């Protein structure tokens, strides 16, 4: 699988695993991949996006989303429009159930083994699927190498927080795809 990855694409995957490790998480998600891609200036993705979105912004929003059980800034704003203060709900819930009450708990497997986290974070099925999608994108664009831009397309096709954050910053699959098609 990795033979078709460009150097930067490979580094992005490694960067994603490292990032999850630093954050003491036991799962590597597409969100980690997005952060790693944006943080690596060599990958050129931030430049490609014309600074529509930075690694710091994405990390910030993903952390807020994590605490909210996956609800994005756009979700919080929409709830506000119908009179629900998500921050207030969270504060109340955390006051009675403790901090990070809405964060998904660690997998049962590691809890049963009696350790708080395994030695190294493992990639989620969604992460793997993102890589598969990115290879398909490269093939459909008739490229020999899978590059960070293809990872971006895959992230935009995979429903989830990474896709939500990109969409919230105006990044659209159709636009990116069109740009890559004409460049080829």
């Amino acid at each position: 699988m990795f033979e078709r990855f460009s150097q930067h694409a490979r580094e992005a995957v490694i960067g994603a695993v490292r990032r999850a490790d630093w954050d003491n998480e036991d799962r590597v998600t597409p969100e980690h991949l997005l952060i790693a891609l944006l943080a690596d200036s060599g990958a050129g993705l931030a430049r490609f996006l014309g600074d529509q979105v930075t690694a710091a912004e994405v990390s910030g929003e993903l952390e807020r989303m994590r605490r909210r059980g996956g609800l994005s800034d756009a979700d919080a704003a929409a709830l506000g429009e119908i009179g629900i203060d998500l921050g207030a709900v969270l504060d109340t819930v955390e006051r009675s159930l403790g901090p990070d009450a809405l964060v998904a708990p660690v997998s049962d497997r590691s809890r049963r083994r009696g350790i708080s986290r395994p030695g190294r974070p493992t990639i989620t099925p969604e992460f793997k699927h993102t890589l598969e999608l990115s290879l398909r994108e490269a093939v459909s664009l008739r490229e020999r190498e899978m590059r960070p831009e293809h990872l971006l397309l895959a992230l935009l096709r995979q429903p989830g927080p990474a896709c939500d954050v990109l969409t919230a910053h105006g990044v659209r699959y159709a636009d990116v795809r069109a740009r890559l098609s004409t460049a080829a």
Partner: protein
Amino acid sequence: MTEATSLAARAGDADPSVGLRAVSALRRLLEQLEAAQVRNARVHGWSWQDIADALGVSRQAVHKKHGRR
């Protein structure tokens, strides 16, 4: 539409996209809240039947949804 005109349109009539987004967000928030409250009930020693009764659903439904965590 420019941002100014779209904002004006939203203020004027009930924009379905905002309303629907709110419903979707509320549904996901509800799921997270339910999961957190069920976890808490289990920590307090509640049986699946107790939890099901409090939620107004069947024991099977609660166990199937939350039992494997």
